[in-house]
């Protein structure tokens, strides 16, 4: 869907992005992660031509982005940024309807779409439609920003640290919502962040950048287990590397079928992560957990030995 082929960006003598190649498949959520100034935002902004690349080629759906008119290229892609960039003189509803109006949708269709999106992002129409951006909390404003990015139902969504300025609680709930949204909408998303936990939580495809180059890319677990160089290892590793991995693995992967033993008192959902399971064990002083499905019916059990990955149980 999106292909970057040997792309380089120079600002004068400085090289911001140095010969990177990257492919994002349709429906994939690709996260660019790295320290500030590593070229991740520049890379993102080259995709919608807010910055023109100096060398190499960028393709959307097999077509060079330079073949499109800038404005029509951008209207095909949603764009959400950290500071939201909502227009302060427009109401929430009008902000969300921006791109559909630019695409000259009939007014009734725009209105219907705005309603649909506000419902999708949990913003009540009566409460928020006529509010102005300065009347919103950070989380609400960012929801509106995401709604606006999704407004014309673009196949591609570009997100530049959209949750960076939010408090940790709001950030986590928006990450959760984004994942859920993504499982329903199957957009192709390029997401930039410097927060490694956020990157691991969201990414299908993780790209670690450093000083304008791609250090390593692949599935989050691959990078976590087999970092190819010291920088990636230092970024991903540290003391809680094991916890980071556990956060990526679901309980269902390590649980055993129900045995003859009595059910353990503490329960955990099979979709929960091993990290959550471990936390529960620590908190409840429990060595065994009963794993339940979505309807709260027991489907297996998880012991501490299994959780930490000891092969043979007992």
């Amino acid at each position, binding site marked *: 869907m999106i292909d970057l082929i040997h792309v380089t960006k120079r600002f004068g003598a400085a090289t911001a992005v140095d010969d990177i190649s990257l492919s994002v498949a349709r429906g994939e959520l690709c996260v660019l992660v790295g320290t500030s100034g590593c070229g991740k935002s520049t890379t993102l902004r080259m995709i919608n031509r*807010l910055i023109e690349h100096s060398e190499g080629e960028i393709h959307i759906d097999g077509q060079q982005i330079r073949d499109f008119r800038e404005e029509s290229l951008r209207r095909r892609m949603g764009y959400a940024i950290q500071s939201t960039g909502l227009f302060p003189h427009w109401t929430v509803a009008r902000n969300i309807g921006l791109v559909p109006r*630019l695409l000259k949708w009939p007014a009734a269709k725009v209105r219907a779409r705005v309603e649909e999106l506000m419902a999708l992002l949990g913003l009540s129409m009566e409460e928020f439609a006529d509010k102005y951006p300065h009347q919103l909390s950070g989380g609400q404003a960012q929801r509106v920003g995401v709604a606006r990015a999704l407004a014309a139902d673009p196949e591609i969504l570009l997100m530049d640290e959209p949750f960076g300025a939010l408090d940790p609680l709001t950030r986590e709930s928006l990450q959760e919502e984004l994942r859920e949204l993504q499982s329903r909408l199957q957009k192709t998303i390029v997401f930039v962040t410097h927060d490694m936990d956020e990157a691991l939580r969201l990414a299908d495809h993780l790209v670690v950048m450093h000083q304008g180059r791609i250090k390593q890319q692949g599935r989050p677990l691959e990078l976590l287990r087999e970092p190819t160089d010291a920088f990636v290892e230092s970024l991903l590793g540290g003391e809680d590397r094991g916890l980071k991995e556990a956060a990526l693995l679901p309980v269902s992967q390590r649980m055993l079928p129900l045995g003859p033993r009595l059910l353990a008192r503490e329960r955990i959902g099979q979709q929960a992560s091993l990290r959550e399971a471990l936390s529960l064990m620590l908190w409840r002083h429990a060595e065994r957990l009963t794993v339940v499905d979505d309807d709260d019916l027991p489907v297996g059990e998880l012991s501490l030995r299994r959780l930490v990955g000891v092969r043979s149980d007992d």
Partner: protein
Amino acid sequence: MTECRRLLVPLCWFSLLLAATLGMGQLEGLFRVIEPDSRQVIYERADFLSLLGRHLSVVGAAAVLAILIGVGAAIAVTRPRGRDFLPLVSQLASMGQTFPPVAVLALAVPVLGFGTLPIIVALLLYGLLPIVRNTLVGILGIDPSVREAARGMGMGSGQILRQVELPLAAPVILAGIRTSVTINIATAAIGATVGASNLGDPIISGIVNGNTAYVVQGALLIGLLALSVDSLFSRLPSPIVR
């Protein structure tokens, strides 16, 4: 209803202005007190209504030109292509204001002759700075992320200017126009020295003939006009909330 209430104050000022213009003759007794020795105490070489009309049209013409040139220039130098001229334009506009209008008149009369043209030129130069400066401040003061988002959403530069930049800068631009016009209503009086007859006439004539009553009449009407126009500006509907 609220519309009416908003315009109440400017309306009061304008009625006061009109009453003073039409009924100046009724105040003869009052002016007699100021100027007991003169044969005539009410300025009668032209009626006040036509003086007011001419005053307004000179200020109006200068304001329209100043807005067109000032806002236009400020927009031009905030485009990527005109950025290089930004310091030059803001400097030129400041120079326009340091140049005394009387000096402009003295220089303009030999070129443009006597009459209304030189005073319009003088007012235009004098009124340009507040408009240029405020338009620049208004446009440059817009949160860069708003412009970035507008571009990222696929708005063209014309759309960004009309739908985002101008509406957001409008309150500041309007404040600049208000300052410019109010100052020029007062400054226009000096036009009377170069034969542009307006509300400055009674003042100049009063000074020349030593008739304080004339001076007071001209000054009174100019003051009322400035207050009326200023209060009208302050009641203009603001296109942006807060």
